[in-house]
């Protein structure tokens, strides 16, 4: 493939992916409001469009046209940069995630992925670890005590749980023997006894999945780990002083992170795009992507479900849970996997 074609294809893929991702972000907000609404004995959005389906558009418009307030005592450069940092790094990590097998168009094999990096998983971890700065700097630059506490909580929490998150993935890495997400998915092909899919979650990584699930909730600041923005304690935490589009960026970053985390869980533990494939070639190309999105959706649903069920941790309990329970569990899982693979 000539270099110009590669660049053109990459740009097109990026644009499509960005469009899909932003739509997914908007509609996961809608989904959350709808699902939590039904769990909580209410309707969620119903007025804008059928089933409130146009609500995300209305929200987006509202965010766009709201006055963008900048409080007088903020540290302006960082105050403006922080939401951008958050949203940029949240959106970047999606670029190495494969959504399905490759399709062949015009003799060229084009994978459902912006770019296939050997160390894709490491890249995602690195990018998400930089995402902390958005939250931390937002909290600090707002010059507000609630924001500062939120920012402090966020950075401590995200750094702590990143360790468990990373360690919970090592089991999968050992089994696949690669950092490449595509190869990890390929390692999960096949079935046990002909019907149980050979996904990592059924393949000895159930504890790893559990650790990942919890650490992922903490990384994305979701219930029951939503301390950085605990509205009953810190008003709105690090984004107390933000309004209009800047607030929307944090919002987008949070949901984009959720989607990334869900994609990663699907790829690493739930067999990626693997699923029954049948029918004509076009269907065979599309179905894996469909299965991928179904799994991501299930993971997102669990996210929302948990939000409707659990109360919130306290700061010290959160730290104790991360360091004294989750980290040893992840290490145990790692040791167990290593021993099993070596044996």
């Amino acid at each position, binding site marked *: 493939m000539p270099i110009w074609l590669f660049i053109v294809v990459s740009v097109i893929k990026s644009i499509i992916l960005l469009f899909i991702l932003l739509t997914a972000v908007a509609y996961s907000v809608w989904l959350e409001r709808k699902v939590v609404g039904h769990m909580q004995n209410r309707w969620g959005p119903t007025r804008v469009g059928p089933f409130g389906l146009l609500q995300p558009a209305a929200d987006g418009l509202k965010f766009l046209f709201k006055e963008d307030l900048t409080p007088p005592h903020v540290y302006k450069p960082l105050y403006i940069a922080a939401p951008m940092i958050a949203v940029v790094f949240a959106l970047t990590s999606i670029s190495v995630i494969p959504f399905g097998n490759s399709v062949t168009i015009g003799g060229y094999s084009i994978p459902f992925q912006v770019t296939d990096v050997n160390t894709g998983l490491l890249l995602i971890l690195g990018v998400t670890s930089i995402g902390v700065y958005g939250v931390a700097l937002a909290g600090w630059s707002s010059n507000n005590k609630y924001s500062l506490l939120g920012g402090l909580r966020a950075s401590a929490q995200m750094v702590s749980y990143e360790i468990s998150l990373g360690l919970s993935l090592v089991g999968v890495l050992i089994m696949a023997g690669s950092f490449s997400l595509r190869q990890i998915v390929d390692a999960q092909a096949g079935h046990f006894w002909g019907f149980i899919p050979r996904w990592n979650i059924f393949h000895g990584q159930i504890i790893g999945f559990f650790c990942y699930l919890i650490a992922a909730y903490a990384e994305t600041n979701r219930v029951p780990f939503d*301390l950085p923005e605990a509205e*009953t*304690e810190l008003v709105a935490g690090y984004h107390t002083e933000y309004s209009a589009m800047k607030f929307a960026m944090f919002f987008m970053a949070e949901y984009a992170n959720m989607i990334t985390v869900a994609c990663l869980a699907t790829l690493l533990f739930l067999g990626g795009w693997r699923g029954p494939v049948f029918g004509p070639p076009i269907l065979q190309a599309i179905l894996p992507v469909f299965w991928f999105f179904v799994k991501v959706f299930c993971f997102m649903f669990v996210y929302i479900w948990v939000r409707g069920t659990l*109360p919130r*941790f306290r*700061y010290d*309990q959160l730290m104790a849970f991360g360091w004294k329970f989750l980290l040893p569990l992840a290490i145990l899982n790692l040791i167990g996997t290593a021993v099993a693979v070596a044996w």
Partner: protein
Amino acid sequence: MAHMTASPVLEPGQDRTMILNMGPQHPSTHGVLRVLLEIDGETVVRIMPDIGYLHTGIEKTCEAKFYQQVVPLTDRIDYLCPLTNNLCYVLAVEKLLGLEIPPKAQWLRVLLNELTRINSHLVWLGTHAMDIGAMTVFLYCFREREEVLRMFEMVSGQRMMTSYFRVGGIALEPPLGFFDRVRDFAGYFPEKVDEYENLLTGNPIWTMRTKGVARMTAQDAIALGTSGPTLRGSGVDFDFRRDMPYSSYDKFQFKVPISQEGDVFARYMCRVQELRESIGIVRQALDGMPEGPIKANAPHVVLPDREKMKTQMESLIYHFKIITEGFAVPAGEVYQAVESPRGEMGYYIVSDGTAKPYRVHMRAACLANLQTLPTMCEGRLIADVVAAIGSIDIVLGEIDR
């Protein structure tokens, strides 16, 4: 004690502490409570509640009203249990007058009071759970509360500011279908309480957040003048309904739930069990509802029925007199306490023999309960302050009056 020496304008002390001004506009200070926190990181070093943002001078207003005109004012004190306030006030005035209240009115008052307690506890449970992050419970609680409010609307025409009790009885007969509706509610409500408890009581995060948090010993609780579930959560077995009965509460069978631990969880369990006890009292009141009048036989105090007023000259004159010049109350003073959902709701009324009260003072349970905050929270985390404020169930309308 530490809270005795708190200074009004908290200055940051040594060790790089920070002053956090929580409220009066804050999601979890339940109204317009302002709490000044001196924090070291996340740890609260000192805490000082600041109140008065909702002060409306109701006590002063009462002095300019006829006795019967005070009843609507009492609704506004504690807007979560208006009927309890109504009851306490009318009981105090009736005591001043020496009125005998017919049994049906008394039983209706008990019935409505327990519904009020359920209403108030549901709001408490919902907001308390939301403070700790469990949002779903909040909406579940409000679902049932809505039903209670509809019942209030049915009897009094108002959802919150009921003003349903009158000096000498009750304003109106409850409408047709009211008792069926209450019975229906009493039938399914215990299941709903199970539902809340399923979401909270056994939940590990909930127990982590509440057990051992914001402890208070029985001695402290008594010394600080707390009452109601806040007192009973510390293991003091005292309930005005049982120990100093009023409005024929002595004819009902109910348990007074107490817990020994004195932490947030203990107070939570007390209130949740009170929900069950209250619905039991409601059921007893429904089953044993006596027949008879709902107003005392005291024509110069109690407004006549509409029907009589239109047909009997005497009633019309009484009506005119009561409305225009009120009714004189013999000189004297009484203090009447009732068990409100929050604790000891007391009305101290001084009469000088005229138709207007000389002095009305409301003893607010929350005002005393709020004083426990420093004892409970100093040395703990910010999140515990939120849990503690939730667990003492404050209503700022009552605190500031």
